[in-house]
Protein backbone atom coordinates (compact mmCIF):
# COMPACT_ATOMS: atom_id res chain seq x y z
CA UNK A 1 0.00 0.00 0.00
CA UNK A 2 2.98 2.23 0.58
CA UNK A 3 3.58 1.74 -3.16
CA UNK A 4 0.01 2.48 -4.17
CA UNK A 5 -0.26 5.79 -2.34
CA UNK A 6 2.24 7.81 -4.43
CA UNK A 7 0.84 6.41 -7.68
CA UNK A 8 -2.73 7.26 -6.68
CA UNK A 9 -1.96 10.70 -5.30
CA UNK A 10 0.21 11.50 -8.33
CA UNK A 11 -2.54 10.47 -10.74
CA UNK A 12 -5.04 12.63 -8.87
CA UNK A 13 -2.70 15.62 -8.92
CA UNK A 14 -2.03 15.21 -12.65
CA UNK A 15 -5.66 14.82 -13.62
CA UNK A 16 -6.98 17.53 -11.31
CA UNK A 17 -5.44 20.11 -13.63
CA UNK A 18 -7.57 18.83 -16.52
CA UNK A 19 -10.96 19.27 -15.00
CA UNK A 20 -12.79 22.17 -13.48
CA UNK A 21 -15.77 22.19 -11.12
CA UNK A 22 -19.10 23.48 -12.36
CA UNK A 23 -18.51 26.68 -10.40
CA UNK A 24 -15.14 27.29 -8.78
CA UNK A 25 -16.61 29.92 -6.47
CA UNK A 26 -19.13 27.63 -4.80
CA UNK A 27 -18.15 25.19 -2.06
CA UNK A 28 -20.76 22.56 -2.97
CA UNK A 29 -19.54 22.42 -6.59
CA UNK A 30 -15.91 22.36 -5.47
CA UNK A 31 -16.68 19.41 -3.17
CA UNK A 32 -18.85 17.56 -5.67
CA UNK A 33 -16.21 17.53 -8.41
CA UNK A 34 -14.22 15.24 -6.10
CA UNK A 35 -16.58 12.34 -6.86
CA UNK A 36 -14.89 12.23 -10.27
CA UNK A 37 -11.75 10.93 -8.60
CA UNK A 38 -13.60 7.99 -7.07
CA UNK A 39 -12.73 6.16 -10.30
CA UNK A 40 -9.05 6.36 -9.22
CA UNK A 41 -9.35 6.18 -5.46
CA UNK A 42 -11.91 3.36 -5.27
CA UNK A 43 -9.91 0.83 -7.41
CA UNK A 44 -6.73 1.66 -5.51
CA UNK A 45 -8.46 1.14 -2.17
CA UNK A 46 -10.19 -2.04 -3.35
CA UNK A 47 -6.87 -3.48 -4.57
CA UNK A 48 -5.15 -2.70 -1.26
CA UNK A 49 -8.07 -4.17 0.68
CA UNK A 50 -7.97 -7.34 -1.44
CA UNK A 51 -4.29 -7.63 -0.57
CA UNK A 52 -5.14 -7.23 3.12
CA UNK A 53 -7.83 -9.89 2.74
CA UNK A 54 -5.25 -12.24 1.26
CA UNK A 55 -2.83 -11.52 4.08
CA UNK A 56 -5.42 -12.35 6.72
CA UNK A 57 -6.19 -15.59 4.93
CA UNK A 58 -2.51 -16.42 4.70
CA UNK A 59 -2.31 -16.01 8.48
CA UNK A 60 -5.24 -18.37 8.81
CA UNK A 61 -3.21 -21.03 6.99
CA UNK A 62 0.07 -20.26 8.69
CA UNK A 63 -0.99 -19.62 12.28
CA UNK A 64 -4.50 -21.02 12.61
CA UNK A 65 -7.78 -19.52 13.71
CA UNK A 66 -7.38 -16.03 15.19
CA UNK A 67 -8.58 -15.20 18.68
CA UNK A 68 -10.07 -11.93 17.52
CA UNK A 69 -13.38 -11.97 15.71
CA UNK A 70 -13.26 -11.87 11.92
CA UNK A 71 -14.76 -8.37 11.94
CA UNK A 72 -11.99 -7.09 14.18
CA UNK A 73 -9.38 -8.75 11.97
CA UNK A 74 -11.05 -7.08 9.01
CA UNK A 75 -11.03 -3.64 10.64
CA UNK A 76 -7.44 -4.15 11.75
CA UNK A 77 -6.38 -4.95 8.19
CA UNK A 78 -8.49 -2.29 6.52
CA UNK A 79 -7.92 0.83 8.57
CA UNK A 80 -4.63 1.71 6.83
CA UNK A 81 -6.51 1.49 3.52
CA UNK A 82 -9.07 3.84 5.04
CA UNK A 83 -6.25 6.26 5.79
CA UNK A 84 -5.30 6.09 2.11
CA UNK A 85 -8.92 6.83 1.15
CA UNK A 86 -9.13 9.80 3.50
CA UNK A 87 -5.77 11.13 2.28
CA UNK A 88 -6.81 10.91 -1.37
CA UNK A 89 -10.18 12.55 -0.65
CA UNK A 90 -8.45 15.28 1.32
CA UNK A 91 -5.96 15.87 -1.50
CA UNK A 92 -8.80 16.23 -4.02
CA UNK A 93 -10.63 18.65 -1.75
CA UNK A 94 -7.47 20.66 -1.20
CA UNK A 95 -6.83 20.89 -4.95
CA UNK A 96 -10.27 22.42 -5.51
CA UNK A 97 -10.51 24.77 -2.54
CA UNK A 98 -12.32 27.91 -3.75
CA UNK A 99 -10.78 31.33 -3.41
CA UNK A 100 -10.49 32.73 0.10
CA UNK A 101 -13.58 34.64 1.06
CA UNK A 102 -16.02 32.15 -0.46
CA UNK A 103 -18.84 31.78 2.05
CA UNK A 104 -19.57 28.40 3.63
CA UNK A 105 -17.29 25.39 3.79
CA UNK A 106 -16.91 21.93 2.25
CA UNK A 107 -20.21 20.19 1.69
CA UNK A 108 -20.11 17.67 4.54
CA UNK A 109 -22.94 15.54 3.10
CA UNK A 110 -21.11 14.99 -0.19
CA UNK A 111 -17.78 14.34 1.54
CA UNK A 112 -19.39 11.85 3.92
CA UNK A 113 -21.10 10.03 1.06
CA UNK A 114 -17.81 9.85 -0.81
CA UNK A 115 -16.01 8.35 2.18
CA UNK A 116 -18.83 5.86 2.79
CA UNK A 117 -18.63 4.75 -0.85
CA UNK A 118 -14.89 4.25 -0.45
CA UNK A 119 -15.55 2.20 2.69
CA UNK A 120 -17.88 -0.01 0.65
CA UNK A 121 -15.17 -0.54 -1.97
CA UNK A 122 -12.67 -1.38 0.76
CA UNK A 123 -15.05 -3.87 2.42
CA UNK A 124 -15.94 -5.51 -0.89
CA UNK A 125 -12.28 -5.67 -1.89
CA UNK A 126 -11.40 -7.33 1.42
CA UNK A 127 -14.14 -9.92 0.91
CA UNK A 128 -12.85 -10.63 -2.60
CA UNK A 129 -9.35 -11.00 -1.18
CA UNK A 130 -10.64 -13.55 1.33
CA UNK A 131 -12.58 -15.50 -1.28
CA UNK A 132 -10.20 -15.76 -4.26
CA UNK A 133 -6.53 -16.62 -4.80
CA UNK A 134 -4.51 -13.46 -4.50
CA UNK A 135 -3.23 -13.31 -8.08
CA UNK A 136 -6.85 -13.22 -9.22
CA UNK A 137 -8.37 -11.29 -6.31
CA UNK A 138 -6.27 -8.13 -6.61
CA UNK A 139 -6.81 -7.58 -10.36
CA UNK A 140 -10.46 -8.57 -9.96
CA UNK A 141 -11.00 -6.01 -7.19
CA UNK A 142 -9.16 -3.33 -9.17
CA UNK A 143 -11.03 -3.88 -12.39
CA UNK A 144 -14.41 -4.49 -10.76
CA UNK A 145 -14.13 -1.34 -8.70
CA UNK A 146 -13.03 0.66 -11.72
CA UNK A 147 -15.93 -0.58 -13.81
CA UNK A 148 -18.45 0.07 -11.02
CA UNK A 149 -17.30 3.66 -10.60
CA UNK A 150 -16.86 4.37 -14.30
CA UNK A 151 -19.02 2.20 -16.52
CA UNK A 152 -22.22 3.16 -14.69
CA UNK A 153 -21.90 6.65 -16.12
CA UNK A 154 -22.30 5.29 -19.64
CA UNK A 155 -25.25 3.05 -18.92
CA UNK A 156 -28.82 3.81 -19.74
CA UNK A 157 -31.26 3.86 -16.80
CA UNK A 158 -30.53 6.98 -14.75
CA UNK A 159 -30.60 5.16 -11.41
CA UNK A 160 -27.39 3.28 -12.25
CA UNK A 161 -25.62 6.64 -12.28
CA UNK A 162 -27.31 7.87 -9.12
CA UNK A 163 -26.81 4.98 -6.71
CA UNK A 164 -23.03 5.20 -7.08
CA UNK A 165 -23.18 9.02 -6.75
CA UNK A 166 -20.61 9.12 -9.55
CA UNK A 167 -22.46 11.66 -11.66
CA UNK A 168 -22.34 14.29 -8.95
CA UNK A 169 -19.13 15.60 -10.50
CA UNK A 170 -20.88 18.27 -12.56
CA UNK A 171 -23.08 19.35 -9.69
CA UNK A 172 -23.93 22.22 -9.07
CA UNK A 173 -24.57 25.78 -10.06
CA UNK A 174 -25.06 28.35 -7.31
CA UNK A 175 -28.83 27.87 -7.67
CA UNK A 176 -28.61 24.13 -6.96
CA UNK A 177 -27.55 21.66 -4.29
CA UNK A 178 -26.83 17.94 -4.55
CA UNK A 179 -30.16 16.12 -4.47
CA UNK A 180 -30.63 14.61 -0.99
CA UNK A 181 -32.20 11.49 -2.52
CA UNK A 182 -29.02 10.79 -4.50
CA UNK A 183 -26.76 11.17 -1.46
CA UNK A 184 -29.09 9.09 0.66
CA UNK A 185 -29.40 6.36 -1.98
CA UNK A 186 -25.63 6.20 -2.41
CA UNK A 187 -25.23 5.85 1.38
CA UNK A 188 -27.86 3.10 1.61
CA UNK A 189 -26.24 1.22 -1.27
CA UNK A 190 -22.79 1.55 0.31
CA UNK A 191 -24.01 0.43 3.75
CA UNK A 192 -25.71 -2.60 2.17
CA UNK A 193 -22.46 -3.61 0.47
CA UNK A 194 -20.47 -3.12 3.70
CA UNK A 195 -22.88 -5.24 5.74
CA UNK A 196 -22.82 -7.98 3.10
CA UNK A 197 -19.02 -7.95 2.97
CA UNK A 198 -18.72 -8.18 6.77
CA UNK A 199 -21.22 -11.05 6.89
CA UNK A 200 -19.50 -12.92 4.04
CA UNK A 201 -16.14 -12.62 5.77
CA UNK A 202 -17.49 -13.84 9.10
CA UNK A 203 -19.74 -16.60 7.75
CA UNK A 204 -18.45 -20.10 8.36
CA UNK A 205 -20.79 -22.20 6.24
CA UNK A 206 -21.66 -21.87 2.59
CA UNK A 207 -25.37 -21.23 3.20
CA UNK A 208 -24.56 -18.30 5.48
CA UNK A 209 -22.21 -16.89 2.85
CA UNK A 210 -24.87 -17.02 0.18
CA UNK A 211 -27.44 -15.52 2.57
CA UNK A 212 -24.98 -12.74 3.39
CA UNK A 213 -25.58 -11.28 -0.07
CA UNK A 214 -29.13 -10.34 0.96
CA UNK A 215 -28.34 -7.06 2.82
CA UNK A 216 -26.46 -5.87 -0.25
CA UNK A 217 -29.38 -6.69 -2.49
CA UNK A 218 -31.81 -5.02 -0.07
CA UNK A 219 -29.63 -1.90 0.06
CA UNK A 220 -29.49 -1.80 -3.73
CA UNK A 221 -33.26 -2.18 -4.00
CA UNK A 222 -33.92 0.63 -1.51
CA UNK A 223 -31.37 2.88 -3.23
CA UNK A 224 -32.95 2.28 -6.64
CA UNK A 225 -36.41 2.94 -5.21
CA UNK A 226 -35.17 6.25 -3.77
CA UNK A 227 -33.72 7.61 -7.01
CA UNK A 228 -36.19 6.09 -9.47
CA UNK A 229 -38.29 9.30 -9.75
CA UNK A 230 -35.22 11.39 -10.63
CA UNK A 231 -34.16 12.19 -14.17
CA UNK A 232 -30.50 12.52 -15.18
CA UNK A 233 -29.69 15.54 -13.07
CA UNK A 234 -28.53 14.68 -9.52
CA UNK A 235 -29.41 18.17 -8.32
CA UNK A 236 -32.19 19.88 -6.39
CA UNK A 237 -33.04 23.59 -6.34
CA UNK A 238 -31.41 25.57 -3.56
CA UNK A 239 -33.57 27.05 -0.83
CA UNK A 240 -34.27 30.69 -1.72
CA UNK A 241 -34.13 31.70 1.94
CA UNK A 242 -30.33 31.55 1.66
CA UNK A 243 -30.43 34.34 -0.90
CA UNK A 244 -30.75 38.03 -0.28
CA UNK A 245 -33.58 39.63 -2.25
CA UNK A 246 -34.41 43.22 -3.12
CA UNK A 247 -37.90 44.65 -2.79
CA UNK A 248 -39.78 45.55 -5.95
CA UNK A 249 -41.06 43.71 -8.97
CA UNK A 250 -39.45 41.62 -10.10
CA UNK A 251 -37.30 40.80 -7.07
CA UNK A 252 -33.58 40.37 -7.69
CA UNK A 253 -32.04 37.72 -5.45
CA UNK A 254 -28.32 37.20 -4.98
CA UNK A 255 -26.79 34.12 -3.35
CA UNK A 256 -24.15 34.47 -0.62
CA UNK A 257 -21.49 33.50 -3.20
CA UNK A 258 -22.51 36.51 -5.31
CA UNK A 259 -22.16 38.97 -2.46
CA UNK A 260 -19.01 40.65 -3.80
CA UNK A 261 -20.62 41.31 -7.19
CA UNK A 262 -24.14 42.00 -5.87
CA UNK A 263 -24.03 45.70 -6.66
CA UNK A 264 -22.90 45.09 -10.25
CA UNK A 265 -25.64 42.50 -10.68
CA UNK A 266 -28.30 44.87 -9.35
CA UNK A 267 -27.11 47.68 -11.62
CA UNK A 268 -27.05 45.44 -14.70
CA UNK A 269 -30.50 44.03 -13.98
CA UNK A 270 -31.98 47.51 -13.47
CA UNK A 271 -30.39 48.67 -16.72
CA UNK A 272 -31.63 45.67 -18.72
CA UNK A 273 -35.12 45.96 -17.24
CA UNK A 274 -35.23 49.65 -18.16
CA UNK A 275 -34.25 48.82 -21.74
CA UNK A 276 -36.90 46.10 -21.93
CA UNK A 277 -39.48 48.49 -20.51
CA UNK A 278 -38.68 51.21 -23.03
CA UNK A 279 -39.22 48.62 -25.78
CA UNK A 280 -42.61 47.83 -24.25
CA UNK A 281 -41.86 44.33 -22.95
CA UNK A 282 -43.87 43.32 -19.90
CA UNK A 283 -42.27 41.41 -17.06
CA UNK A 284 -43.31 37.82 -17.19
CA UNK A 285 -44.36 36.26 -13.90
CA UNK A 286 -41.75 33.60 -14.54
CA UNK A 287 -39.05 36.25 -14.10
CA UNK A 288 -39.78 36.68 -10.40
CA UNK A 289 -37.47 36.27 -8.57
CA UNK A 290 -34.46 36.81 -10.81
CA UNK A 291 -31.50 34.68 -9.73
CA UNK A 292 -28.26 33.86 -11.48
CA UNK A 293 -26.58 30.48 -11.74
CA UNK A 294 -22.95 31.59 -11.66
CA UNK A 295 -21.09 32.94 -8.65
CA UNK A 296 -19.87 35.99 -10.58
CA UNK A 297 -22.15 36.46 -13.60
CA UNK A 298 -21.01 38.80 -16.36
CA UNK A 299 -23.23 41.10 -18.38
CA UNK A 300 -23.82 38.42 -21.03
CA UNK A 301 -24.85 35.79 -18.48
CA UNK A 302 -27.20 38.25 -16.81
CA UNK A 303 -28.92 39.08 -20.11
CA UNK A 304 -29.03 35.41 -21.12
CA UNK A 305 -30.70 34.44 -17.83
CA UNK A 306 -33.31 37.18 -18.15
CA UNK A 307 -34.00 36.36 -21.80
CA UNK A 308 -34.37 32.70 -20.85
CA UNK A 309 -36.95 33.66 -18.24
CA UNK A 310 -38.89 35.86 -20.69
CA UNK A 311 -39.22 33.29 -23.46
CA UNK A 312 -41.58 30.37 -22.85
CA UNK A 313 -40.13 26.88 -22.56
CA UNK A 314 -41.16 24.61 -25.38
CA UNK A 315 -44.39 22.70 -24.69
CA UNK A 316 -43.87 19.01 -24.00
CA UNK A 317 -45.04 16.14 -26.20
CA UNK A 318 -46.20 18.01 -29.27
CA UNK A 319 -47.98 15.65 -31.68
CA UNK A 320 -46.27 17.14 -34.75
CA UNK A 321 -42.85 17.52 -33.13
CA UNK A 322 -40.88 20.71 -33.55
CA UNK A 323 -40.40 21.90 -37.14
CA UNK A 324 -37.38 23.91 -38.20
CA UNK A 325 -39.22 27.22 -38.12
CA UNK A 326 -40.07 26.78 -34.44
CA UNK A 327 -36.40 26.96 -33.50
CA UNK A 328 -35.82 29.76 -36.03
CA UNK A 329 -38.54 31.80 -34.32
CA UNK A 330 -36.98 31.04 -30.94
CA UNK A 331 -33.54 32.13 -32.13
CA UNK A 332 -34.90 35.37 -33.61
CA UNK A 333 -36.78 36.17 -30.42
CA UNK A 334 -33.62 35.59 -28.37
CA UNK A 335 -31.45 37.69 -30.65
CA UNK A 336 -34.06 40.50 -30.71
CA UNK A 337 -34.06 40.51 -26.90
CA UNK A 338 -30.24 40.41 -26.81
CA UNK A 339 -30.03 43.41 -29.12
CA UNK A 340 -32.79 45.20 -27.18
CA UNK A 341 -30.86 44.60 -23.95
CA UNK A 342 -27.94 46.43 -25.51
CA UNK A 343 -25.63 43.54 -26.45
CA UNK A 344 -23.96 43.54 -29.84
CA UNK A 345 -24.79 41.24 -32.74
CA UNK A 346 -21.64 39.18 -32.21
CA UNK A 347 -22.85 38.13 -28.77
CA UNK A 348 -26.30 37.30 -30.12
CA UNK A 349 -24.63 34.96 -32.63
CA UNK A 350 -23.60 32.88 -29.63
CA UNK A 351 -27.21 31.72 -29.27
CA UNK A 352 -28.59 32.12 -32.80
CA UNK A 353 -27.55 31.37 -36.36
CA UNK A 354 -25.91 34.38 -38.10
CA UNK A 355 -28.70 34.66 -40.69
CA UNK A 356 -31.33 34.92 -37.95
CA UNK A 357 -29.33 37.62 -36.17
CA UNK A 358 -28.91 39.44 -39.49
CA UNK A 359 -32.66 39.30 -40.18
CA UNK A 360 -33.42 40.71 -36.74
CA UNK A 361 -30.83 43.49 -37.17
CA UNK A 362 -32.39 44.53 -40.46
CA UNK A 363 -35.83 44.43 -38.86
CA UNK A 364 -34.73 46.62 -35.95
CA UNK A 365 -33.41 49.30 -38.28
CA UNK A 366 -36.46 49.31 -40.62
CA UNK A 367 -39.51 48.60 -38.46
CA UNK A 368 -41.13 50.98 -35.99
CA UNK A 369 -40.88 49.98 -32.29
CA UNK A 370 -44.62 49.25 -32.19
CA UNK A 371 -44.35 46.88 -35.16
CA UNK A 372 -41.39 45.12 -33.53
CA UNK A 373 -43.28 44.73 -30.28
CA UNK A 374 -46.35 43.23 -31.91
CA UNK A 375 -44.05 40.87 -33.86
CA UNK A 376 -42.36 39.88 -30.60
CA UNK A 377 -45.67 39.25 -28.82
CA UNK A 378 -46.95 37.14 -31.71
CA UNK A 379 -43.73 35.16 -31.48
CA UNK A 380 -44.06 34.54 -27.75
CA UNK A 381 -47.62 33.32 -28.29
CA UNK A 382 -46.45 31.02 -31.08
CA UNK A 383 -43.67 29.54 -28.94
CA UNK A 384 -46.02 28.83 -26.07
CA UNK A 385 -48.21 26.46 -28.08
CA UNK A 386 -47.43 23.32 -29.98
CA UNK A 387 -46.37 24.23 -33.54
CA UNK A 388 -49.08 23.57 -36.13
CA UNK A 389 -47.61 23.04 -39.59
CA UNK A 390 -46.88 26.54 -40.82
CA UNK A 391 -45.61 29.49 -38.73
CA UNK A 392 -48.21 32.16 -37.88
CA UNK A 393 -48.62 34.83 -40.58
CA UNK A 394 -47.28 37.61 -38.36
CA UNK A 395 -43.94 35.82 -38.09
CA UNK A 396 -43.50 34.93 -41.73
CA UNK A 397 -42.64 38.51 -42.63
CA UNK A 398 -39.11 38.05 -41.28
CA UNK A 399 -37.52 35.66 -43.72
CA UNK A 400 -34.39 33.68 -43.25
CA UNK A 401 -32.90 35.20 -46.39
CA UNK A 402 -32.55 38.51 -44.59
CA UNK A 403 -34.68 41.43 -43.62
CA UNK A 404 -38.40 42.03 -43.53
CA UNK A 405 -40.28 41.31 -46.73
Amino acid sequence: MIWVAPVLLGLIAIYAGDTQPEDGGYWTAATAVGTLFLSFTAPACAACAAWEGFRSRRLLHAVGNPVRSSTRVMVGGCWPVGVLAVTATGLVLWLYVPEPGTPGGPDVAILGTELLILCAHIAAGYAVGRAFPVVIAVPLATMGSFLVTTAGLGLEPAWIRHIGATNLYNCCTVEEIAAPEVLFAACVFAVGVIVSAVLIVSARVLVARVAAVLPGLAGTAIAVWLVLPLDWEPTAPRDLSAAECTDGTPRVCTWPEQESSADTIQASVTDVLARFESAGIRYADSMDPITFAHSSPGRIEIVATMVGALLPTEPADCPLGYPEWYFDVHERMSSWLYLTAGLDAGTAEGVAAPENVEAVRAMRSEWSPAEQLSWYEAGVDALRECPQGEPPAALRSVTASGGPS
Partner: protein
Amino acid sequence: MSWYMAARCWVVSIAAAAMIVVAAAVFGSATLELPDLFSGVVIALPVSVLLPAVPAAMVLWNMGRGEPAHEAAAVRRPAEFDLAAVAALLLAQVVTAALLAPWFSFADSLAVVRNTAGYVALTLVLSRLIGPVVANVVMVMFPIICVRFGTIYAAGAPASAWWAWPLDTHSSLVALTQVLTLCVAAAAITRAAWLPRRRGVPAGT
Protein backbone atom coordinates in the same frame (compact mmCIF):
# COMPACT_ATOMS: atom_id res chain seq x y z
CA MET B 1 1.37 -35.98 -15.40
CA SER B 2 -2.15 -36.36 -14.06
CA TRP B 3 -0.88 -35.38 -10.62
CA TYR B 4 0.68 -32.32 -12.14
CA MET B 5 -2.56 -31.37 -13.89
CA ALA B 6 -4.58 -31.89 -10.72
CA ALA B 7 -2.16 -29.98 -8.51
CA ARG B 8 -2.08 -27.04 -10.89
CA CYS B 9 -5.87 -27.05 -11.51
CA TRP B 10 -5.24 -26.41 -15.22
CA VAL B 11 -8.66 -27.81 -16.14
CA VAL B 12 -10.38 -24.83 -14.53
CA SER B 13 -8.40 -22.31 -16.55
CA ILE B 14 -8.72 -24.24 -19.79
CA ALA B 15 -12.48 -24.45 -19.35
CA ALA B 16 -12.63 -20.75 -18.53
CA ALA B 17 -10.55 -19.92 -21.61
CA ALA B 18 -12.91 -21.89 -23.83
CA MET B 19 -15.94 -20.24 -22.22
CA ILE B 20 -14.40 -16.83 -22.88
CA VAL B 21 -14.28 -17.56 -26.60
CA VAL B 22 -17.99 -18.41 -26.51
CA ALA B 23 -18.83 -15.32 -24.46
CA ALA B 24 -16.79 -13.03 -26.72
CA ALA B 25 -18.51 -14.48 -29.78
CA VAL B 26 -21.98 -14.08 -28.26
CA PHE B 27 -21.41 -10.53 -27.05
CA GLY B 28 -19.70 -9.77 -30.34
CA SER B 29 -19.13 -6.08 -30.73
CA ALA B 30 -20.72 -5.06 -27.42
CA THR B 31 -18.74 -2.33 -25.75
CA LEU B 32 -18.48 -0.92 -22.28
CA GLU B 33 -18.86 2.82 -22.55
CA LEU B 34 -16.38 4.36 -20.17
CA PRO B 35 -16.77 8.10 -20.10
CA ASP B 36 -13.28 9.54 -20.06
CA LEU B 37 -14.39 12.29 -17.76
CA PHE B 38 -11.27 14.31 -18.11
CA SER B 39 -11.31 14.73 -21.86
CA GLY B 40 -15.07 14.53 -22.39
CA VAL B 41 -14.65 11.67 -24.87
CA VAL B 42 -16.47 8.40 -24.33
CA ILE B 43 -14.02 5.54 -24.61
CA ALA B 44 -15.62 2.36 -25.86
CA LEU B 45 -13.97 -0.75 -24.45
CA PRO B 46 -15.03 -3.79 -26.51
CA VAL B 47 -16.06 -6.70 -24.28
CA SER B 48 -14.15 -9.07 -26.57
CA VAL B 49 -10.95 -7.16 -25.78
CA LEU B 50 -11.44 -7.18 -22.01
CA LEU B 51 -12.68 -10.77 -21.54
CA PRO B 52 -9.45 -12.61 -22.52
CA ALA B 53 -7.79 -10.97 -19.51
CA VAL B 54 -9.79 -13.37 -17.30
CA PRO B 55 -8.10 -16.67 -18.34
CA ALA B 56 -4.80 -14.80 -18.61
CA ALA B 57 -5.10 -13.75 -14.96
CA MET B 58 -5.87 -17.35 -13.99
CA VAL B 59 -2.69 -18.71 -15.57
CA LEU B 60 -0.48 -17.19 -12.87
CA TRP B 61 -2.73 -18.71 -10.24
CA ASN B 62 -2.19 -22.13 -11.82
CA MET B 63 1.54 -21.65 -12.08
CA GLY B 64 1.83 -20.34 -8.53
CA ARG B 65 0.27 -23.37 -6.91
CA GLY B 66 3.53 -25.26 -6.52
CA GLU B 67 6.40 -24.65 -4.13
CA PRO B 68 9.21 -22.87 -6.04
CA ALA B 69 12.00 -24.35 -3.94
CA HIS B 70 10.75 -27.88 -4.60
CA GLU B 71 10.11 -27.26 -8.26
CA ALA B 72 13.58 -25.85 -8.77
CA ALA B 73 14.98 -29.22 -7.76
CA ALA B 74 12.39 -31.35 -9.58
CA VAL B 75 13.54 -34.02 -12.03
CA ARG B 76 10.83 -33.01 -14.47
CA ARG B 77 10.90 -29.40 -15.60
CA PRO B 78 7.72 -27.65 -14.37
CA ALA B 79 8.45 -24.61 -16.56
CA GLU B 80 8.14 -26.70 -19.70
CA PHE B 81 5.04 -28.42 -18.36
CA ASP B 82 3.51 -25.05 -17.66
CA LEU B 83 4.28 -23.75 -21.13
CA ALA B 84 2.76 -26.88 -22.62
CA ALA B 85 -0.35 -26.34 -20.51
CA VAL B 86 -0.62 -22.74 -21.73
CA ALA B 87 -0.30 -24.06 -25.29
CA ALA B 88 -3.09 -26.54 -24.52
CA LEU B 89 -5.20 -23.68 -23.17
CA LEU B 90 -4.76 -21.73 -26.40
CA LEU B 91 -5.41 -24.89 -28.44
CA ALA B 92 -8.68 -25.37 -26.52
CA GLN B 93 -9.63 -21.85 -27.53
CA VAL B 94 -8.85 -22.53 -31.20
CA VAL B 95 -10.92 -25.72 -31.09
CA THR B 96 -13.80 -23.83 -29.48
CA ALA B 97 -13.52 -21.16 -32.15
CA ALA B 98 -13.62 -23.84 -34.85
CA LEU B 99 -16.70 -25.41 -33.25
CA LEU B 100 -18.39 -22.02 -33.19
CA ALA B 101 -17.43 -21.28 -36.81
CA PRO B 102 -20.84 -22.20 -38.31
CA TRP B 103 -22.52 -19.50 -36.21
CA PHE B 104 -19.87 -16.91 -35.44
CA SER B 105 -16.96 -15.46 -37.37
CA PHE B 106 -13.95 -17.78 -37.02
CA ALA B 107 -11.55 -14.93 -37.72
CA ASP B 108 -13.00 -12.78 -34.93
CA SER B 109 -12.71 -15.70 -32.52
CA LEU B 110 -9.09 -16.11 -33.53
CA ALA B 111 -8.54 -12.47 -32.56
CA VAL B 112 -9.76 -13.44 -29.07
CA VAL B 113 -7.25 -16.31 -29.04
CA ARG B 114 -4.52 -13.90 -30.13
CA ASN B 115 -5.42 -11.48 -27.35
CA THR B 116 -5.46 -14.29 -24.77
CA ALA B 117 -2.02 -15.37 -25.93
CA GLY B 118 -0.80 -11.79 -25.75
CA TYR B 119 -2.16 -11.20 -22.26
CA VAL B 120 -0.77 -14.49 -20.96
CA ALA B 121 2.64 -13.71 -22.44
CA LEU B 122 2.56 -10.18 -21.05
CA THR B 123 1.71 -11.33 -17.53
CA LEU B 124 4.28 -14.15 -17.66
CA VAL B 125 7.02 -11.69 -18.61
CA LEU B 126 5.96 -9.17 -15.99
CA SER B 127 5.49 -11.70 -13.19
CA ARG B 128 9.19 -12.58 -13.20
CA LEU B 129 10.11 -8.90 -13.09
CA ILE B 130 7.59 -7.32 -10.72
CA GLY B 131 5.81 -10.25 -9.10
CA PRO B 132 2.64 -12.09 -10.10
CA VAL B 133 0.07 -9.93 -8.31
CA VAL B 134 1.23 -6.61 -9.72
CA ALA B 135 1.83 -8.28 -13.10
CA ASN B 136 -1.81 -9.33 -13.25
CA VAL B 137 -3.01 -5.88 -12.21
CA VAL B 138 -0.93 -4.26 -14.94
CA MET B 139 -2.10 -6.84 -17.49
CA VAL B 140 -5.77 -6.24 -16.62
CA MET B 141 -5.27 -2.50 -16.96
CA PHE B 142 -3.54 -2.86 -20.32
CA PRO B 143 -6.77 -3.07 -22.41
CA ILE B 144 -8.02 0.13 -20.79
CA ILE B 145 -4.68 1.86 -21.36
CA CYS B 146 -4.87 0.77 -25.01
CA VAL B 147 -8.37 2.19 -25.45
CA ARG B 148 -7.61 5.38 -23.55
CA PHE B 149 -4.20 6.25 -24.98
CA GLY B 150 -3.91 4.02 -28.04
CA THR B 151 -6.97 5.14 -29.98
CA ILE B 152 -6.27 7.78 -32.61
CA TYR B 153 -9.26 9.92 -33.49
CA ALA B 154 -8.21 10.88 -36.99
CA ALA B 155 -10.60 11.71 -39.80
CA GLY B 156 -12.90 8.81 -40.55
CA ALA B 157 -12.97 5.68 -38.41
CA PRO B 158 -10.87 5.75 -35.24
CA ALA B 159 -7.62 3.84 -35.68
CA SER B 160 -5.40 2.29 -33.04
CA ALA B 161 -1.79 3.07 -32.31
CA TRP B 162 0.76 0.48 -33.44
CA TRP B 163 1.44 -0.68 -29.88
CA ALA B 164 -2.24 -1.16 -28.97
CA TRP B 165 -2.37 -4.69 -30.36
CA PRO B 166 -5.48 -5.89 -28.48
CA LEU B 167 -7.58 -3.42 -30.46
CA ASP B 168 -6.34 -4.49 -33.88
CA THR B 169 -8.46 -6.57 -36.20
CA HIS B 170 -7.82 -10.26 -36.70
CA SER B 171 -5.88 -9.64 -39.93
CA SER B 172 -3.33 -7.24 -38.43
CA LEU B 173 0.20 -8.52 -38.99
CA VAL B 174 1.66 -5.85 -36.71
CA ALA B 175 -0.42 -7.12 -33.80
CA LEU B 176 0.39 -10.75 -34.58
CA THR B 177 4.12 -9.97 -34.70
CA GLN B 178 3.98 -8.25 -31.34
CA VAL B 179 2.06 -11.10 -29.73
CA LEU B 180 4.45 -13.71 -31.15
CA THR B 181 7.43 -11.69 -29.90
CA LEU B 182 5.83 -11.48 -26.46
CA CYS B 183 5.20 -15.24 -26.52
CA VAL B 184 8.84 -15.99 -27.33
CA ALA B 185 9.96 -13.63 -24.58
CA ALA B 186 7.51 -15.24 -22.14
CA ALA B 187 8.72 -18.75 -22.99
CA ALA B 188 12.34 -17.72 -22.57
CA ILE B 189 11.77 -15.91 -19.29
CA THR B 190 9.64 -18.72 -17.85
CA ARG B 191 12.38 -21.25 -18.57
CA ALA B 192 15.13 -18.98 -17.29
CA ALA B 193 16.52 -20.55 -14.13
CA TRP B 194 18.80 -17.62 -13.40
CA LEU B 195 15.87 -15.28 -12.77
CA PRO B 196 14.28 -15.99 -9.39
CA ARG B 197 10.61 -16.86 -9.35
CA ARG B 198 8.83 -14.17 -7.41
CA ARG B 199 5.76 -14.95 -5.47
CA GLY B 200 5.08 -14.44 -1.77
CA VAL B 201 2.14 -16.77 -2.06
CA PRO B 202 2.42 -19.92 0.04
CA ALA B 203 1.00 -23.11 -1.37
CA GLY B 204 -2.71 -23.61 -1.13
CA THR B 205 -3.75 -19.97 -1.01
